[in-house]
């Protein structure tokens, strides 16, 4: 097996407190710290480990979005990816981009670079859709192994472990395949400073959705984005009677 394609989404950093825009069209992204989606980081790490075990020869990282995505891709390159593809989508258009759009781009790219495995995080921590891997697999008509916690290659088959409710599920997937990384697949390494410096010299290809013949027109409208309602403080009741009367006051019994 030769080539691994890894999806790298740029998301608002997990430590940032999310604020909704005053006009309710979305969340504030300007001047907010962004980083590589943590699950994608696990995906990159898995690819790098495959390369270290000599079951992969080349890792290509791909990210869709505004120009700052190149910083995200540099992180993947610093971790050990060999090259990067940045699919430039201006901020304005990126607002409407959905999992399907990205999946189409990933699928096309996988074909184009002759990938044997596509690895993505199980979900991104901003939209939490958790469907890109599945869609890519469908579009390519490849086997899919999602939410994986372990992967081993035996001959031309990936032996996969998935964490499911109440236990572990073992499956196999023939290559080429699409896999999505769950939290416990691995612990990603730190990008070291020398590697970050080296990453600056690694190749970064710039593309547009048009190059992949993907139509970005929106299939849905965002009506409104609002903060979750804040919880109000409760009260302690002295007795059952108190409780019942409070419930009655609240009109729930």
């Amino acid at each position, binding site marked *: 097996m030769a080539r691994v394609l890894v999806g790298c989404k740029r998301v608002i950093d997990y430590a940032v407190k999310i604020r909704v825009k005053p006009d309710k069209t979305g969340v504030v992204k300007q001047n907010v710290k962004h*980083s590589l989606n943590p699950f994608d980081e696990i995906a990159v790490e898995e690819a790098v480990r495959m390369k270290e075990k000599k079951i992969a020869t080349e890792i290509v990282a791909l990210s869709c979005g505004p120009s700052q995505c190149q*910083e995200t891709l*540099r*992180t993947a390159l*610093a971790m050990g990816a060999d090259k990067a593809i940045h699919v430039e989508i201006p901020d304005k258009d990126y607002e409407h981009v959905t999992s399907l759009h990205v999946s189409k781009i990933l699928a096309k790219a996988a074909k184009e670079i002759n990938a044997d495995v596509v690895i993505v995080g199980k979900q991104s921590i901003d939209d939490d859709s958790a469907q890109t891997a599945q869609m890519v697999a469908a579009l390519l008509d490849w086997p899919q192994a999602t939410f994986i916690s372990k992967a081993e290659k035996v001959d031309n088959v990936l032996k996969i472990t998935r964490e499911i409710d109440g236990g572990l599920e073992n499956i196999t997937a023939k290559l080429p395949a699409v896999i999505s990384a769950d939290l416990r697949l691995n612990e990603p390494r*730190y*990008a*070291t*400073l*020398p590697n*970050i*410096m080296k*990453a*600056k010299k690694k190749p970064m290809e710039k593309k547009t959705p048009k190059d992949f013949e993907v139509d970005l027109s929106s299939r849905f409208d965002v009506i409104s984005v609002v903060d979750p309602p804040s919880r109000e403080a409760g009260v302690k009741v002295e007795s059952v009677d108190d409780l019942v009367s409070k419930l009655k006051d609240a009109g729930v019994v």
Partner: protein
Amino acid sequence: MHYKNQFYYDNQQKFVMDILYRLSFCMNIFRGKAVTEQVFPFPAVDVLDEERKETLDALVDPVSKFFEEVNDAAKNDELEKIEDHTLEGLKELGAFGLQVPVDFGGIGLSNTQYARLVEIVGSHDLGVGIALGAHQSIGFKGITLFGNEEQKAKYLPKLAAGQEFAAYSLTEPASGSDANSIRTKAELSADGKHYVLNGSKIWISNGGIADIFTVFAKTPVKDSKTGDTKDKITAFIVERGFGGVSSGPPEKKMGIKCSNTAEVYFEDTKVPVENVLGGVGEGFKVAMMILNNGRFGMAAALSGTMKSCIAKAVDHAQNRKQFAKNIHEYGAIQEKIAEMVMRHYATESMAYMVAANMDKGAKEFQIEAAISKVYGSEAAWFCCDTAMQILGGMSYMKDTGLERVMRDLRIFRIFEGTNDILRLFVALTGIQYAGGHLRDVLAALKSPVSNPGLLVGKAVEKAKRSMGVVSPISVVGAHSELAAEADKLGTCIAMFGGSVEDLWQIVLLMTDLYSPSGRVGAVHLYFLIICSKQYEHGLFNFAERVSCFCFLDEQFLLWRIAEAAMDIYSMSAVISRCSAALTSGLPSSEHEKVICQTYVEKATQRVKDNLGELTSTPHQAIFKNMSLISKQTVANAGVIAQHPLGGSL
């Protein structure tokens, strides 16, 4: 570029002056001038080009993450060593060669980029900070600054990778602040191929673990003109493997425990002649240049420490309820938090101003760097102490983590030039520089009939000053919303220049008193002592200057001069940074403006007080008394006053 200085009388002694001196803001306040090229606009704003900025952005995250998730400061403190896996992680991270050029295996960071990263280290673990700093900020800095290509190629790659550790070895049992008095000797072998090194060094950071030492030793040097042989300091790169190098056990310390400190001994160590660093007899310059170049990093690291102390204090003040209110609502707490924030702002502004000026090629920043170290170490101590006060009893508990920071911080006021000696350094360097520019006044004093008009004018100025009237000089470059602050800065600089001039007159007067040969002779003698000391590349013979002023017993005054200089520089850095914030409309600019206004107001007051004390009659009595109290106590080997309960209790 060296320029012959014309003010000097003695033609035999060459007094050379680096033209770049004239650009140093701090040097020039000593002559009452506002030379603001290195202050306005805030140099840190544009010191990083796009690429360097991007690189830095990429580096900040992994370094922060490493210190948040891998490094355990409490554990390092407890074990009195950096945990093994952390040390390995630091090596992989590339933390041991941050400023080593990429060609030699380092990260190739500029001073500003380096400052930003050590700020992160400082906010988490000062012990690790010292281990890293002792290695690269001073340990092998001499090789990057003065090493030839062979020396760089031979040593830097392994040092940058952390495969070898470096240590700066200057201090000796009998030689601390007075670095010129070292006794370690290096003598050329008969065949001229190597030096034989003998001596011992104490309190060497990384001394027990280092493989490469920058060692300072006295070597006999023949003066080409006079033919006399004199002992001069030379710097050497010494490998532990050269033989005869041994080190003592790790010292038990109050803080920065995970950083190794040990004695180092050299016994007939053979050092090849090609390992001389920076030239034979040039060691004092090498030693001082290394320290000068490292000081900005301390200020940056300490600003990180202050930030984390403030975060702890604020978190507590916000959540702790006493007398039915969160304690941050009380004035006593508010004043503390505001003081911490202002001092942090000043430290951070100076650290990045010095770093940026160095990156922009400034050659003369020794006073500025010294001020940033003195101010930063005292501001950080204040912040930690104040944070502890806000947290109350909780802060005294080990788990809160502040007591460790306090123990770690204490050394910063002591090492790499004690704050006391650096204050004298600041005052003396500046005063001497001003002396050159005051030549007309001083010459007129020497012979009053030659230029009576000048003296009258100066006398009027002095009289006005003594009544608190100064004509402020204009400081150009501050944001229009900070015009009032710029005026205050201008007033301070004018007052300061005047005070330095007055001090020169006091000094001349005293020289007169001490000299039996009359006024003219005394002045001339004084000039011989003070001005004739040759300096190269901006380095005077500091020891001689100290002893000169000690003889005149002026340290009470010099201290206040240094205090005022520090306030003026910190004020200028604060105004400059705040101006930049206002100009670019940062979201925090209004907040910064309040900090700036308050800081400048308070600093101006301090400058006035300190300068006032130089000449006020009560203070002359105070200085005299303090000297007396000290002398008597020393003579008695302890306090003298009778016990309040009397008798021999």
